[in-house]
């Protein structure tokens, strides 16, 4: 590296400090350099290691290091032996643990033997005293800087880069334009539909039965006892051939039954429940985790991801945590056979907020 500094400008970093101090009148630099600052006392006397002083210790270190390297070889052999002698037997978890552990211990021994041996060799036996190297200013020498400037101006002259400005500017324009097709190519990362329309609709519609997650069996209103909660998916979701998870990620619902006198319902939503049974989107309005924890005493729903809390008795209003909006309510009713059905889709998009949500 010293080759870079062999020119006449090869000053040391310290010289620059002195130079800068001369300029202090102009420069706003405010390092204080005191005339009577204590001076560097220079290197302290060298402290020898035991291995430098005692040939016996030196010999001992040599043996220890060789032993470590030897142990490393044994470790590597043991690892291969463990691989062969302790195979995984299907259905037996214990064999996986044994295989993992013995193979790992063998490899560990192989690695640590080399590592500790090499570090010990370096610290105990290799030439012990510190050596000194000079630092130079990081900047190139004056000569190489001048030459660099010269090269650029020659190149400029030979190419006419600044003189022929029309050519230069059109080239810059062309360079800016070339990546645009690459950006356009990414449009088909997703199919051509509009995601906003998709986000605003779920599988729920009038007459769709509420069924248990994951079995898909319908739920009778009479099955829903006070205090109980059901994880619900729309009828037909479990049988979907494609987009099952995508639909489930929007349509998952929690069904709960509260004592009617504890349920505070707004007038416009009075018909959305059935005998104290209410259904709410299970997808958190914060960032979309499933709001899976129901506290039946307080009628609170808790999202386990970020601890938003919703009050089921009050239309799932947010009572704590980072969520901004109540969980959307699914209007429900009962069909002729006594099964719970949806009256319609959700009346607002479920899940996290997005730009076009309220449009």
């Amino acid at each position, binding site marked *: 590296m010293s080759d870079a500094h062999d020119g006449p400008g090869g000053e040391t970093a310290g010289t620059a400090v002195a130079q800068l101090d001369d300029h202090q009148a102009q420069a706003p630099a405010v390092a204080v350099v005191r005339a009577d600052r204590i001076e560097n006392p220079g290197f302290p006397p060298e402290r020898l290691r035991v291995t430098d002083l005692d040939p016996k210790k030196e010999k001992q270190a040599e043996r220890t290091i060789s032993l470590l390297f030897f142990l490393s070889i044994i470790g590597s052999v043991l690892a291969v032996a463990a691989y062969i002698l302790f195979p995984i037997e299907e259905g037996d978890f214990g064999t996986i643990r044994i295989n993992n552990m013995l193979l790992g211990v063998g490899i560990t021994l192989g690695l*640590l033997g080399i590592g500790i041996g090499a570090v010990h060799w370096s610290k105990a036996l290799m030439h012990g005293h510190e050596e000194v190297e000079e630092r130079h200013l990081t900047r190139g020498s004056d000569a190489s800087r001048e030459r660099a400037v010269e090269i650029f101006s020659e190149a400029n002259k030979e190419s006419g880069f600044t003189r022929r400005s029309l050519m230069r500017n059109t080239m810059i324009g062309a360079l800016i334009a070339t990546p645009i097709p690459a950006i356009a190519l990414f449009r088909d990362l997703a199919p051509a539909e509009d995601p906003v329309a998709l986000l605003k609709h779920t599988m729920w519609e009038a007459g769709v039965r509420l069924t248990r997650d994951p079995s898909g069996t319908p739920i009778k209103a009479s099955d829903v006892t006070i205090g109980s909660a059901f994880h619900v998916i729309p009828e037909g979701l479990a049988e979907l051939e494609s987009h099952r998870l995508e639909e489930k990620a929007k349509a998952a619902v929690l069904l709960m039954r509260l004592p009617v006198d504890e349920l505070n319902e707004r007038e416009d939503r009075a018909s959305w429940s059935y005998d104290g049974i209410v259904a709410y989107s299970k997808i958190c309005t914060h960032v979309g985790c499933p709001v899976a924890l129901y506290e039946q005493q307080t009628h609170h729903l808790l999202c386990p991801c970020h601890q938003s809390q919703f009050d089921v008795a009050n239309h799932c209003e947010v009572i704590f945590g980072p969520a901004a909006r109540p969980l959307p309510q699914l209007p429900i009713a009962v069909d002729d056979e006594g099964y719970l059905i949806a009256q319609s889709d959700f009346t607002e998009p479920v899940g996290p907020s997005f730009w076009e949500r309220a449009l």
Partner: protein
Amino acid sequence: MSTTAPQAETSAVAPSRGMRFTGWAANYVDERTSASTAVKALGRKIFPDHWSFMLGEVALYSFIVILLSGTFLTFFFDPSMTEVEYEGSYVPLQGIPMSVAYHSALDISFEIRGGLLMRQVHHWAALLFVASIGLHMLRVFFTGAFRKPREFNWIVGFLLFVMAMALGFTGYSLPDDLLSGNGLRIIDGMIKAVPVAGAWISYLLFGDEFPGTDIIPRLYVLHIMLLPAITIALIGIHMVLLIVNKHTQFAAPGRTNDNVVGSPVLPGFAAKAGGFFFIVFGVIVLIASFFTINPIWNYGPYDPSPVSAGTQPDWYIGFADGALRLIPPHLDWVDPLGYTWPFGVLIPLVGLLVFLAAVALYPFFEAWVTGDKREHHIAERPRNAPVRTAIGAAGVTFYAALWAAASSDLIATHFRLSIEGVIHALQFATVAGPFIAYFITKRVCLALQRKDREIALHGFESGRIVRLPGGEYIEVHEQLDDFERWRLVSFDEYQPIMIRPNAQGRITVAQRARAGLSRWFFEDRIAPVTKGELESQAHH
């Protein structure tokens, strides 16, 4: 043999007839590569020694371990989201529909000898990688090792930190288990909050509505190709700049801003650093042999409906998750045009970006405030830069409060506190904690500087009590020798910038701001002991 062969090869061969194979091979290579030039330049390059310089090495070595174990995993992992029924040996999941990705991750764990070990080596090494980068950054920050000429390398290191988090998150998502799927769902929710294009970005990223069937293969390409390639390139730049700038060293007798004191690459440093690689590797394998990490078989395949309580991301994503938890409710705002601004997500998101930007740009800010254009190669003791150390402590406190918030539910259940109480306490800690930490740290630094000054001037308490003829008891102080004292007195001293009119005779706003900041940095300061003080003290 030395007579007929032409030019170079003869001249190199001629002097010694009993030429050994190594000599021949070295010559063969050098004549084709000029390798000797590199050996000459780097072979005896000096590297200074301090335990804290090891942190960056740990990061580098754990990355190599990640590359090795990750390559093994790619031979067996299949990143497809096609749905299959589980037919492997793990009974509880048999017959359950799942993605091929999850299936193959289970197969790596249960069917392949050493597969579980490599998975755990890979995951533990990744955790260690991010942790060691974080500690390495703290070391560089608190010792001022980011100062000129190392500002670029600070930026490169910062980018490596970001890359490490990105690699970690993409890798964490690949097994397509319930936990990582919920992580992706949270990312999806955050992306959707982005004004104007959020829904579209999410749609393009997932290739469909969430979760779609494209995200795992796409993250896989990022995780095993694009991000590692960028990371390797950045590590290359980091190393080249390290060589160009040479390593910093702590102040010690004989060490100056103009020299590097330490052991040469060959043999001492190479043996020690090379050995240390094997130690890091060995320790990671040891941990992976005994401690389970990310037992994906317990979580089950991803399904948008179930989730378990007490879910947590890998530790390095915790601060982002915590930020999401701490924001108060009801912050959606629908503007008059009908567009939704989900500030409950946007504020944490922007806050984290601002925090990261502040970390990246701090060296330039400090350089501007101090106006110091010199090169600095002596690592400062944190106490000797009280305001910087205090700013660092404030940043660490901010990060730690967010990080703790990612475990708010576990803190509440373990210590039997209410979740509301924990959240409110952490909200307070996030906002007020940095200021408190700043104030305390600055005072502690100044006090430590005063103590250093005291010891440099008056020596240290020897523990020897002497009774004077008059009956008075004193404790004898022993003076330091010159070498010990040097560590206490060799630091840079600054004074605040004076406001001066510029060439037009005006005082600009920038000038005023800078003077104000400079006063903030340097108004309270302790000067190092001078020769004069020391001499007059000696005469007492």
